[in-house]
């Protein structure tokens, strides 16, 4: 009984925190993502050469280098090498055998990272973009114990081959590749370094030029052109330019994929192999898989892929006579397949992953060493969609002559990265979410059907409504058996206080909202905000050509429906719970009130243009030299609980509430100034404007408008006596600055902005903030009663902070302490610097990297707002800016309460006879 007493002061201390310790890691969720892994930059590697435990390393299309624990899929470490990278950026990741560093090359930087903890060992900026990085597996006497050197090939105006010291990154030698040839790749054998560049012939075809360099001195030893005739039209048909192996090879095909040509580097001979046609279908893709180690057998596998099937052929290189010969072929299977190469000592194993099975063969013979069937990848996919493996990396453990186990990290066509251990999925990482471009909250369709049925009952006549209700209840009775079955478990869980939130159907708090994310590669992925461990559904919604950029906007026009619209296509709607496409398209602005006249405005020719019934009403053109940075309209659904602010003496300051407000930000690059306008978007009137000079226009300018206040932040340059710093400006619009005065329009029921233009009175305050804000959002609750928090994304510290509005309030008194009335309002003295309180960091210990945008949605509980941040990482949490006043927290001890009630009941039953007896006795006993 003393324990609760001790707990009381602890709980009181806890209530001062913004993120409660019992809620951290519990109500929030975070996917630490890497992005789309690339085949060429993903591998298993042992970070500590002395131990056998290996990690999966990858450098993703998003430019993130990371190490994954193959046991549970958790990120061991990661580094964002190139923020905002895309699939077009060439990137390289190499690990030397038995080395504890991995060497990356992306952009114009080559860097080495400690494989175990991700610390940078060294980095080097090469002139021009990095074209290739290789590790020199040289076995010369003096360097045998130390770090292995790297060879980097850089492009640009002066293509260079550089040998970098493995321990320090210092350039040991460099060789300039002369001429106009485009550098393509670098490769190393035991004795030579080969630099391959593409030479353009007069006819526009490409020829491969191989330059051999001495690895010790960097001097050119040989240079020759490979006679590729007129086969190479683009660099894309070069299948591979061999990596580190005993005999590096170059392989290419013609554009029709009819013939495969292979050259062993350092020789001039070219072996040519016909690619046989299967079922008359064109081969779409030819890939070559070869081991990466010098001491492994020089065998390689060529993987052919058509639209419906795939097969592979294994070739052996005869080192003595420099000939390439086909050894055996793996049979054709339908669907797509992924091959991966693993080595064990000198033996080479190829693992084939198809949608049905995983099997491993040795490179020496076609006998199957291990075969496991795959029952499913255990990931969400669209209806009727076949989940196909795209690429895989494998780790084979060999016992004797057989393969005892194989682990494969497979990228699936759904964008999930899964690990198969002997054919059964162990974990999956939803890496497709790392490329989310647009997201929205939607309420589940199950909730909506009940609402619709209740509405139908309300609108029909009483008898029909009664029949409808009875039939609905009869229908509900079908769920009774399962409900009764789950009842004991529910009671036990409720009694122990361990009850997890129910499913979507029984969600009474509105925490289970569906978040639909449209990803870069044309998929729509749905996550349940209340149960974020699992992807609900994952659907291909757009067929994109390679290289095509998709800029969709996802929205939820009404509950249970998700709508995607992009430039190319009008809105397509999907059921939020199942992902099914809805046949009937609803009008977009169903929620809009029908009585009001509609004004539509859009960005046009660098300005704004508004139309009413297709006739232009107003134009907004920034002055010359200015460009529009952003436009933030007030949200369509922005409930406001009170139209005024109650002052400390109980008078009222009326807010200027107009749904047609927008905050427009323009920047002048030449004058280094930014202008902020608050516009009335019906009349086009400028209600407020402010120019800030000395603004760093290249850094992000975040802005936000909600209710009757706006805020923006920018980076100010050092100017005169003011230092460089980040500033946050908050402005609040009032009808009148005189209390109890409702302005010119007084209490009229409606107004037209076209006829009567009232101007607000604006109070602003500028604050210095310690960090640049890259994006702003605001919490939203169901009725707008709860106080607001400004959500600011801090890109530099990978964090999201929630700043309470009270801190930003423009009515904070300057140069004096607040009066008693102001204190009653909660106003504190103005201080020009806002330090981000560590309690405001919503991500607490988590590192939320690369957040591009934050969206919020009200829950059914008034106190709570849901947050979802996307970009590279996915982060979501529940916020209660005024604390959770309408729901019991986790700290509420249900068991203690029940025990108290039970104890009281027992006491009553025990004491009642005693008291009764005493009363009777007192009647009968005198003195």
């Amino acid at each position: 009984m003393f324990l609760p007493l001790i707990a009381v002061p602890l709980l009181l201390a806890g209530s001062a925190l913004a993120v409660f310790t019992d809620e951290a890691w519990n109500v929030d969720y975070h996917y630490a993502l890497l992005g789309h892994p690339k085949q060429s930059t993903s591998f298993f590697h042992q970070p500590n050469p002395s131990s056998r435990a290996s990690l999966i390393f990858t450098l993703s299309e998003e430019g993130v280098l990371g190490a994954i624990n193959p046991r549970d899929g958790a990120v061991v470490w990661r580094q964002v090498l190139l923020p905002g990278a895309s699939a077009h950026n060439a990137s390289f990741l190499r690990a030397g055998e038995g080395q504890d560093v991995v060497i990356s090359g992306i952009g114009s930087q080559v860097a080495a990272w400690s494989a175990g903890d991700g610390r940078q060992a060294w980095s080097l900026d090469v002139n021009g973009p990095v074209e290739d990085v290789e590790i020199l597996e040289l076995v010369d006497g003096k360097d045998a114990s130390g770090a292995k050197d790297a060879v980097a090939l850089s492009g640009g105006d002066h293509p260079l081959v550089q040998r970098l010291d493995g321990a320090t990154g210092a350039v040991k030698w460099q060789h300039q590749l002369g001429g106009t040839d485009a550098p393509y790749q670098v490769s190393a054998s035991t004795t030579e370094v080969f630099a391959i560049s593409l030479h353009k012939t007069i006819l526009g075809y490409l020829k491969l030029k191989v330059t051999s360099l001495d690895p010790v001195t960097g001097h050119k030893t040989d240079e020759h052109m490979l006679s590729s005739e007129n086969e190479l039209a683009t660099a894309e048909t070069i299948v591979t330019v061999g990596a580190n192996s005993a005999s590096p090879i170059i392989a290419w095909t013609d554009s029709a994929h009819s013939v495969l040509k292979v050259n062993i580097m350092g020789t001039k001979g070219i072996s040519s192999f016909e690619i046989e046609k299967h079922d008359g279908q064109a081969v779409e893709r030819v890939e070559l898989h070869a081991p990466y180690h010098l001491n492994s057998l020089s065998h390689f596998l060529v993987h052919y892929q058509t639209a419906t099937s795939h097969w592979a052929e294994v070739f052996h290189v005869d080192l003595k006579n420099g000939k390439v010969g086909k050894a055996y072929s793996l049979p054709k299977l339908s669907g797509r397949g992924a091959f991966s190469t693993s080595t064990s000592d000198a033996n080479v194993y190829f693992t084939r992953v198809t949608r049905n099975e995983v099997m491993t063969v040795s490179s020496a013979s076609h006998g199957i060493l291990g075969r496991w069937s795959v029952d499913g990848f255990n990931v969400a996919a669209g209806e009727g969609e076949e989940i196909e493996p795209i690429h895989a990396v494998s780790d084979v453990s060999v016992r004797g002559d057989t393969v005892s186990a194989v682990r494969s990290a497979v990228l699936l066509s759904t964008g999930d990265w899964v690990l198969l251990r002997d054919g059964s999925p162990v974990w999956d990482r939803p890496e497709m979410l790392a490329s989310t471009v647009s997201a929205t909250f939607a309420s589940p369709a199950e909730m909506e059907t009940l609402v619709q049925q209740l509405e139908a009952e309300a609108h029909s006549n009483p008898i029909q409504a009664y029949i409808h209700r009875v039939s609905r209840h009869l229908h509900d009775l079908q769920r009774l058996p399962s409900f009764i079955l789950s009842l004991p478990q529910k009671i036990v869980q409720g009694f122990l206080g361990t009850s997890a939130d129910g499913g979507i159907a029984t969600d009474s708090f509105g925490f289970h909202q569906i978040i639909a994310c449209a990803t870069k590669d044309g998929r729509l992925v749905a996550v349940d905000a209340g149960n974020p461990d699992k992807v609900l559904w994952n659907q291909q919604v757009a067929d994109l050509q390679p290289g095509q950029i998709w800029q969709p906007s996802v929205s939820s026009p009404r509950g249970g429906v998700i709508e995607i619209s992009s430039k190319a296509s009008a809105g397509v709607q999907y059921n939020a719970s199942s992902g099914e496409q809805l046949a009937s398209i609803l009008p977009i602005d169903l929620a809009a009130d029908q009585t009001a006249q509609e004004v539509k405005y859009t960005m046009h020719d660098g300005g704004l243009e508004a139309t009413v019934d297709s006739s232009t009403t107003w134009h907004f053109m920034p002055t010359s030299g200015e460009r529009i940075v952003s436009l933030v309209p007030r949200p369509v659904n922005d409930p406001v609980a009170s139209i005024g602010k109650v002052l400390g003496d109980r008078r009222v300051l009326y807010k200027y509430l107009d749904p047609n407000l927008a905050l427009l930000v323009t920047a002048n690059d030449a004058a280094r100034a930014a202008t902020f306008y608050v516009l009335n978007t019906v009349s086009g009137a400028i209600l407020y404007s402010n120019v800030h000079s000395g603004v760093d226009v290249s850094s992000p300018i975040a802005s936000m408008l909600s209710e009757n206040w706006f805020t923006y932040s920018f980076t100010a340059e050092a100017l005169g006596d003011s230092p460089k710093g980040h500033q946050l400006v908050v402005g609040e619009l009032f009808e009148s600055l005189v209390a109890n005065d409702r302005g010119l329009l007084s209490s009229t029921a409606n107004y037209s902005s076209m006829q009567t233009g009232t101007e607000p009175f604006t109070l602003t305050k500028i604050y210095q903030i310690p960090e640049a804000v890259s994006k702003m959002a605001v919490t939203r609750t169901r009725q707008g009663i709860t106080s607001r928090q400004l959500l600011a994304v801090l890109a530099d510290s990978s964090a999201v902070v929630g700043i309470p509005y009270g801190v930003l309030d423009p009515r904070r008194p300057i140069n004096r302490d607040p009066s008693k009335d102001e204190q009653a309002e909660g106003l504190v003295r103005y201080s020009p610097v806002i330090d981000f309180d560590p309690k405001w960091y919503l991500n607490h210990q988590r590192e939320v990297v690369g957040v591009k945008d934050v969206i919020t949605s009200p829950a059914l509980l008034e106190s709570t707002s849901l947050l979802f941040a996307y970009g590279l990482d996915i982060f979501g949490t529940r916020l209660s800016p005024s604390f959770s006043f309408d729901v019991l927290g986790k700290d509420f001890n249900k068991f203690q309460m029940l025990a108290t009630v039970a104890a009281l009941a027992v006491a009553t039953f025990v004491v009642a006879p005693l008291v009764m007896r005493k009363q009777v006795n007192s009647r009968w006993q005198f003195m």
Partner: protein
Amino acid sequence: MATQFPPPPPPQWLRDLTATSTPAKPKSSSIPDPPGFTSTTALTTKQSKASASKALTPRKQPSPEEMDTLKLKKAWELALAPAKQLPMNAIGMYMSGNSLQIFSIMMVFMLFKGPITAVLNIQGTFQRLETDSNRQQMLLVKAAFVGCNLLALALGLWKVNGMGLLPTTRSDWLAWETAREPLERAYYVPS
């Protein structure tokens, strides 16, 4: 004096049963009754002793006029009693502060309940003191009683106002004011 033996006392249970109104005097008590108290048992059983020890002179009954004056005096006392409590109440209210706490709320509640119930029970309060002859004067007394209670009520109102529970300011009626409806709505159409 011939020795007279009293009849044997009835058994205890019978005495308990018959003695309904007066509580039984403890047997073991050796404390004498206070002067002027004549217990019924003493009157019946020990009359001779009592008459010998005390000389009781019967009081002279007051005249009806004197009675009226006395009753009026008593009535004025009753009527002015709430006014006498006012300063104490006022101090109590002042001390309890204007914050909304259970203690101050209870005090304010009692402050309202007292005068209202007193005014409602005014007839009962003065019934014993009212006679046909002093009815005219009693009206004035009752008016004074109501007035004093109203003063106490006013104190309560002052207190409630101090606590901010009276809807006298603009903010109290803010919830009934509605936002103005715009006749136009603007929508941003991304180009």
